[in-house]
């Protein structure tokens, strides 16, 4: 089923942008519903996933504009629970799990500090693994803008991560 195929990716995209799991669930639902209701507007020359991501992008941007997400938190402990991220395919031991958790928290903390637009580029490229062309279609940025802004985002993220590591 089409929705089951995309729900995980879409949910993660929205969650990493907003920092709220409940909101990510709501927006994922809304994006699917909007896609269902406006399926006749879908242009088959584009990827279906890109179109879906574009709908989700518009939803998040609308909320940012309305100021509903001014204080965006990407804190992983939002719901008071710790979600395990398996970084490697094999089952890591307790020490590795702890390291992964620390690394994940550090990355999320650094992401939180990035401006929303740069954060979105990192999320789309690093986590969703979209191509520059797909990112351009989702965000509405020109190809060269994606290239330069993604570079800026990575540089900022790298500096933030270095600063956090030094502080530890």
């Amino acid at each position, binding site marked *: 089923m089409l929705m089951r195929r995309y729900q995980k990716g879409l949910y993660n995209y929205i969650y990493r942008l907003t920092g709220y799991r409940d909101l990510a669930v709501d927006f994922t639902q809304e994006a699917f519903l909007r896609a269902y209701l406006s399926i006749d507007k879908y242009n088959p020359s584009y990827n279906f996933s890109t179109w879906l991501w574009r709908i989700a992008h518009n939803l998040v941007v609308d909320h940012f504009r309305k100021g509903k997400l001014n204080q965006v938190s990407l804190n992983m402990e939002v719901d008071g629970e710790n979600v395990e991220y398996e970084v490697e395919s094999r089952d890591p031991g307790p020490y590795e799990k702890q390291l992964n958790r620390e690394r994940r928290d550090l990355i999320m903390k650094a992401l939180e500090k990035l401006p929303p637009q740069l954060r979105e580029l990192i999320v789309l490229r690093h986590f969703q693994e979209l*191509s520059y062309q797909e990112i351009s279609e989702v965000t509405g940025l020109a190809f060269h803008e994606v290239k330069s802004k993604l570079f800026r985002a990575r540089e900022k993220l790298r500096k933030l991560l270095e600063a956090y590591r030094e502080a530890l």
Partner: protein
Amino acid sequence: MKHYSMEEIYLYLDGEMPPMEKTLFEDHILVCKDCAHRLQRAREFLEKTKLEEEEPTVDVASLVMNKIDKKRKLLPLVYAFFILLVSALTVPVFFGLDRAVFFYYVIFDYFKKLFLVFQGFLSLILSARVNLFLVIAAGAMLVPIYFGLKKIWRST
């Protein structure tokens, strides 16, 4: 020797470099220690900032399907309402205003009577003036009506 910028290095690592440039870049990396070092650093950075996706807290697809089903069920009702509304509004066009007023009055009167019957039936039950047999008989009559309507609803 011209060095590659970090932006170009990321372009290569993201697989976005055009084939010709890619070949030139790979040739350059073999001879330039500085660019090779920066390439290695960028590769490590990308590896370190990779995170796995987490499962949604709920099955979003099921929630969406439920909502779509509800919408689908409501749709015939919405259509019926609009058809009724449009037909009511077109009565004066075809039959003249005085006949339309009469038509509206008949409809209104019908619903008024229906409401009165319902009200009377309700007050009878509430005041317990009717015996138990009648209530059970009325209830028994409602059952086939309910299932009949449900069947019609499903078929639509």
